[in-house]
C-alpha cells in the first residue's frame, strides 16, 4: 500500500532549510537544469569536440581538460536522483509506468512529455535557470528577476492549462 504524501508546509519548511544549508556552506542555492545542458555539451563534445569549442554557448561549459560533467549541479542532480530513489523506495512508490490522466493514451503522453521537456530545457537556458535554480534560489535571496520569473512560470502554466486538460484530468 502506498504511503500518503507528506504535508506540503512541512516539506516546504524542510526544503527551505536544505537551501539555507546550501547557502551557508557553499554560498549558492540548489538547481538542476544546467545538468541537462552539461549532458548535452558532454555528448556533443564526445562526437564533435571542435563543434563545442566553436559554439559560443557550449564553450561556456568547457574548461580545459576537465569534463563538463565535473560540475556542482551535476553532482547535485545525481544526489537528487539518489534521494528521490531512497524516498520512493521506503514509501513503496517505485512502479514502472507511464504516468498520465485517465483519458490519454501512452504514446500521446510520451510525445507531450518530450515536447514539454524540449520547451523546458530551452526556457531554462534562456532564463538562466529553472524552477529551483532560478525561482526558489533567487526568490529566497530576494533577487528581483527571480520573482518575476516565478510569476511568469505560474502565468504560463495557468494560461495554457486549459489546452492540456485531457492529458491530466
Amino acid at each position, binding site marked *: 500500500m502506498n504511503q500518503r504524501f507528506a504535508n506540503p508546509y512541512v516539506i516546504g519548511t524542510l526544503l527551505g532549510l536544505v537551501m539555507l544549508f546550501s547557502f551557508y556552506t557553499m*554560498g549558492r542555492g*540548489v538547481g538542476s537544469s544546467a545538468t541537462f545542458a552539461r549532458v548535452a555539451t558532454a555528448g556533443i563534445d564526445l562526437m564533435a569536440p571542435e563543434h563545442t569549442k566553436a559554439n559560443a554557448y557550449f564553450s561556456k561549459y568547457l574548461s580545459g581538460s576537465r569534463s563538463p560533467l565535473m560540475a556542482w549541479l551535476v553532482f547535485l542532480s545525481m544526489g537528487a536522483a539518489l534521494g528521490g530513489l531512497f524516498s520512493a523506495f521506503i514509501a513503496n512508490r517505485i512502479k514502472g509506468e507511464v504516468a498520465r490522466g485517465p483519458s490519454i493514451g501512452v504514446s500521446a503522453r510520451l510525445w507531450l512529455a518530450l515536447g514539454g*521537456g524540449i*520547451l523546458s530545457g530551452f526556457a531554462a537556458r534562456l532564463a538562466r535557470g529553472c524552477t529551483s535554480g532560478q525561482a526558489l534560489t533567487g526568490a529566497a535571496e530576494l*533577487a528581483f528577476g527571480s520573482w518575476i520569473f*516565478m510569476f511568469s512560470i505560474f502565468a504560463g502554466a495557468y494560461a495554457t492549462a486549459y489546452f492540456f486538460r485531457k492529458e491530466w484530468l
Partner: protein
Amino acid sequence: MGPLYKLGWFDFAYGLQMAGLIGFLFGFVLERAGFGNVRKLTANFYLRDFAVFKVMFTAIIVCMLGLLYFSVFGWIDLGLVYLLPTYIWPQIVGGLVLGIGFIMGGYCPTTSIVATVSGKLDGLVFIGGMIIGSFIFAEIFPLLEKFYSAGDMGAIRLTDVLNLNSGIIALLVCLMAVGAYWFVEKVENKFGDRDTLPGGSKRMKRSAAAILILLGLILALINPDRIAANRPSPQAQTRERMEEIQKPSPKAEKPSSSKFEIVEDEGC
C-alpha cells in the same frame, strides 16, 4: 561565518561531495511531498491541489528568513552569496515558456529526475527532451544572443526596486504568504478531493501564521541591512580565524592536482 566555501573552508572537490549531500536531501524531500507524481504536480494548475505552490513558497520564505536572521546574527555574509543577476526580458519569456513546458510535460527539471527514479517512463522522456532543448538553445544561440542579455539590470534585489529595506520586504512577503495560503486552501477545498488533501488543524495553521508574521515583524523593526552594514569588516576577522582553523584540518588540505574553479553558471 558563512558561506564556508567562499571563505576557503574547503575546496571544489569537497564542494562536489557537498553537492551530492544537498542533492540527496533535495530529492528526498521532493519525493516525500509527492513530486514524483505527475498528476499531483499538475493538479496545481487545475485548482485541485496547491502542493506545488505551497512547497515552493514555504521553502522561499523559510530560506529568506533564515538568510536574513543568519545575517543579523553575523553567521553569514550575504555579500558573498552569489546573487542571480536580473535580465528581465529573457526571464519573463523563459518563465512563460517554462510554465507551458511544465503543464505540457507534467514536470519541471528537478521533479522529472524524481519521477524517473520512481520508474516513470514519461519522466525519462522529459529529461531527454530537456537535453534536446538545451542543445537547440546552444545551436541557435548566435540568433538569441542579443535577447539573452536584454533588459540587463544587474544583480538587483527587491529592496533596490521597491526602495525598502530587507526587513520590510520580509514582512510583506510573510503577510502575502499567509494571505495566499488562506486563499489557495479555500480554492482547493472547493475544487479538490478533500480526502487526498493534507490535513492539519486550524489551530496549528493559525499558530504557524502568527509565528511567520512575528518573524517578519521583528526583521522589519531591526532592519537587517543596517546591522550587516555596521558590522566592522567581518570578512577580515573570519579570515584570520579561519587560517588558524584551516591548518590542522586534513579536509581543507585535500590534494588538488588539477585546479578546480567555480564556472560562471553559478545560479543555474
